[in-house]
């Protein structure tokens, strides 16, 4: 039997900067994970629906527009609506320090800012998923 960690990397919202998302996607791929990459300008419903159809183990959102306090709760709402309350969610991008705690209170498991070593993200996912 063959199991792989499946990760959705999505960019909700309107910013067009996907370098960070691609770097993370590549790092997770190189760590042996299967990464589903959705591309730019996803609505919260698109992110949640992709997570559902792909049956991923974890969802990563990349947001550089500053709209994270608006977008993240809507993604969580769409995920909950589909019965995915239990699915771990992490956020990367330009997130002011003061917003990290509020995001975690909404249910985000971890927030990764600029300069985070990709190995930290890999370790975080392995820890979250446990022994998949």
């Amino acid at each position, binding site marked *: *039997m*063959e*199991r*792989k960690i*499946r990760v959705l990397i999505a960019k909700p919202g309107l910013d067009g900067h996907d370098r960070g998302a691609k770097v993370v*996607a*590549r790092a*997770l*791929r*190189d*760590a*042996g*994970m*299967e*990464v*589903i*990459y*959705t*591309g730019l300008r*996803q*609505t919260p*419903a*698109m992110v949640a*629906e*992709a997570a*559902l*159809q*792909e*049956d991923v183990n974890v969802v990563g959102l990349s947001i550089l527009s500053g709209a994270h306090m608006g977008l993240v709760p809507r993604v969580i709402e769409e995920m909950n609506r*589909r*019965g*995915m309350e239990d699915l771990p969610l992490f956020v990367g991008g330009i997130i002011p320090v003061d917003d990290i705690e509020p995001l975690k209170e909404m249910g985000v498991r971890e927030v990764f800012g600029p300069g985070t070593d990709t190995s930290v993200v890999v370790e975080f996912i392995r820890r979250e998923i446990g022994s998949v």
Partner: protein
Amino acid sequence: MGLAEAALQGDRRAMARLLSWVENGSLEGQQALATLFPHTGKAHIIGITGSPGAGKSTLLNQLAREFRDRDGQVAIVAVDPSSPFTGGALLGDRLRMRDLVTDPHIFIRSMASRGHPGGVAHATRDVVTVLDALGFPLILVETVGAGQAQVEVARVVHTVVLVEAPGMGDEIQALKAGLMEIADIIVVNKADRPEAKQTVKSLQSLRTSLPAGHHGFGTGISVEEAPVVPVGWEVPILQTIALENEGVFELTNAIKQHYDYLKNSGRWDLLLRQHAEAEVEAWLQRHFQQLLNQKIGDTGYKALVDAVVRHEIDPAKAAAQLLEAVTRPVSKA
């Protein structure tokens, strides 16, 4: 209620989880396949193959929209390659299917090839089986970017659409064995490119040199049914510009015509038989491999590999010795 039952009642999360079980080859997955198998056999399964960058995903995006309007529901299985080094994969086919993501009548599943060399994953057939059982009348399978020899999609689908980009080679490329032989429909995408006409011409000249109804897919086990095709199918060569949605409607028509041809010519039953044989054979190999792994264990295997490394024994002989140890009859006492 089990997952299979929940999925049969339309629970999309149950569907997705079920596909994972089956993809992972888990025991639950095998049980679910057994439960679902009697519900299969109704879908028309269409393969989209061709070289990387030919426009498969973009074309599939448009095709799915056309078919959704006509047939109600469409499932998509998109395969991308796994890394041979890390086992990881970047599954990016969704990037070109953004129109379809929130359509409640469309279900998209990305699959990594997981080391399987044929252009689809080992479990693609099983995933298709589940989607068929769940009532999707049309299932589109996108292969990894395929070169010349990745022909296994023909064992999974009923209709193979080969997508070519203009300027990819001369007539000799088209004459080579492999991918060209399994195509039921050939599409020259990006037809607005200047080289498109020449590509279509090369393909047409190739077609006239082939006997109609030439393509069949031997499973290696039995070939005696092969030449019973009563009416030939002339492989149409179509042109599309997927980004502009041009030629896509004609392509859906050609796909439907191929379906009718299969049904009316008796070719459908032959295909089902070939697929069934290929599947039984694949499972036989899977079971056999598992059995071997269990029986051989690590110690004898490692010792023999070491001996091969030291050039004391050749690989074929090492394998033969392992097999012999496993198949030696157990005493009946």
